[in-house]
């Protein structure tokens, strides 16, 4: 593997994978991977199905313990940090989060305050203010009393992002937040995530399938294939015709996005 990793110059590293090997049972999915995520960055992890990008995100969110190496949150091994401490700094949104039947949006968002609460202090005025603000900011106030299972896919994703916002973490990991959404709602959700980054200063890591949307919203792309980090850098650096052939086995043209100027992939055909 060539040293494509381009460590940023001055910004502090918040979250890092240090030689992590990940797998399930005997199967190794990600082999000895290094990755550094700096404060205030917006990173999208891309790659073909089964390349290990979701597995990597799970490890970054301490849902999966590496079999070798370690994940460092603010320089400290995440697996040896109390999980409640981690939950105050790092929030995560699983790919298909499960909301119990009958739960309202307000209840869901309120649950984001869990790491800040104790048995004695179950609902402080702080909690209330933060939840109200999160609902307002994600434009979910009117739906606050609706059951989550009665929402459309796009609304539901907004509700979950609202919960992540209420958790009040500096870092936010999202696993394919646009799955099952139509294009308009994909854009809507990514706009919201983008605003979390620009307006709220969140450090965001997102696993995405859509390369054009990834290039448009993320500052940095990380491309993976077969559990190996192939390229990392700005969208323009990563999304080259050569890389698309190598990583996605796709012959494609890369043209400037007419709206944002970011690289846009126009597929030609599958290679092989």
């Amino acid at each position, binding site marked *: 593997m060539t040293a494509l990793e381009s460590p940023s110059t001055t910004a502090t590293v918040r979250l890092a994978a240090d030689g992590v090997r990940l797998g399930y049972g005997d199967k190794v999915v990600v082999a000895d991977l290094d990755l550094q995520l700096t404060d205030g960055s917006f990173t999208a992890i891309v790659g073909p199905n089964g390349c290990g990008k979701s597995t990597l995100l799970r490890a970054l969110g301490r849902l999966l313990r590496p079999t070798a190496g370690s994940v460092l949150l603010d320089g400290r091994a995440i697996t040896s940090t109390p999980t409640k401490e981690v939950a105050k700094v790092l929030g995560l949104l699983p790919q*298909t989060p499960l909301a119990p039947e*009958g739960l309202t949006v307000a209840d869901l968002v309120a649950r984001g305050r*869990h790491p800040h609460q104790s048995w*004695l202090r179950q*609902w402080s005025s702080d909690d209330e203010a933060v939840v109200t603000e999160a609902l307002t900011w994600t434009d979910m106030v009117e739906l606050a009393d609706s*059951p989550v299972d009665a929402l459309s896919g796009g609304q539901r994703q907004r509700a979950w992002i609202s919960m992540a916002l209420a958790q009040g973490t500096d870092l936010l990991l999202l696993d394919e937040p646009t799955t099952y959404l139509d294009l308009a709602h994909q854009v809507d959700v990514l706009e919201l995530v983008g605003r979390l980054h620009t307006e709220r200063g969140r450090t965001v890591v997102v696993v995405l399938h859509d390369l054009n949307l990834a290039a448009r919203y993320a500052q940095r792309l990380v491309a993976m294939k077969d559990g190996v980090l192939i390229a990392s850098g700005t969208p323009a650096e990563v999304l080259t015709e050569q890389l698309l052939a190598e990583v996605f086995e796709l012959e494609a043209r890369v043209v400037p996005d007419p709206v944002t100027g970011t690289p846009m992939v126009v597929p030609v055909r599958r290679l092989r």
Partner: protein
Amino acid sequence: MTAVAPTRAPAARPDPRRTLRVGGFSATYRRRQLVVPLLVLVVLVLAAAVSLGRGDYPISVLDVLRVLVGAGDDTQQFIVLGLRAPRIAVAVLVGTALGISGALIQTFARNPLASPDILGVTGGAAVGAVAVIVLGGTTTASRLLGGLGLPAAALAGGLLMALLVFGLAWNQGLDGYRLVLVGIGLSAMALAVVRYLLTRSTIQDAAVANVWITGSLNGRGWDQALPLALALLVLLPVSLALSRVLGALQFGDDTARGLGVRVPLAQAVTVVVAVALAAFAVSAAGPVQFVALVVPQIAVRLTGGSRPPLLAAGLLGALLVVASDLVARTVLPETFPVGVVTSVVGAPYLLWLLVRGRRRTTL
């Protein structure tokens, strides 16, 4: 993605979350979460009073209530407190324990059809109890068991079986689905052992064993009530303390971990408490059918919200067992085991839940 086609009507009566803040303590509640348990408690007291008054020497509800607050004449006091109260106390305690146990298991498994039965508690307890009844004092092993007494054998059987289910299902944490499947497998094996013991038994022993397997309050008194009361004294506060974590746990393991819950620990404590509650209840009155399965689902429909409320489930469980016992003793022949009545109420409800099964079920 879960299949979602909920034709659920939007919350008909808005019941907004209210905030309670006293000193350093703060919590939220909804009105129905307070009103429903209180109403159930009132009905429970009335049902218990009616039950305490029925028998060969009928006493009016008012007189029973008078006795309960310390008044009434000596005869009434003796009959109500001395003769009838122990049985009703066992009914209340068994129902409470089973209701809370069911609520814990269903929240943990995220499955409205889960109950302590699938954790092997019932099957193991049945093996222990039937072994004592059938083998009597014929072998050294059973003499040892018999020395412990039937409730102790049932308790030991239930806990051992649950431990086995737990051990086989544990895989770097507990998966609700895996636990259910292991529980069903081992329960089937326990049933086979029970059947084997029954075929080897005399007809008298088989009849006694059969009543025990159904769940009965006949002949139950303070000897059964006391251990169960002590167990509840410890396990009830633990259950209520778990409530906050259960609120996060119901979202699925990943989200719960993301919220800072130590998922394997929380799951283990939840299951252990639920198993212990069920095992003590079963050892006192036998596996009273369907209480743990049905009551949490009734409770959640009465209070609203997204998971079975523990306190309301406990009170409703007590009400179901007391009321079923009342029916068994007054409408039906005296010896009818209470488990038959709870089944008659429970089975149709289970079917109704299954028919409505197009609603999301995680299993």
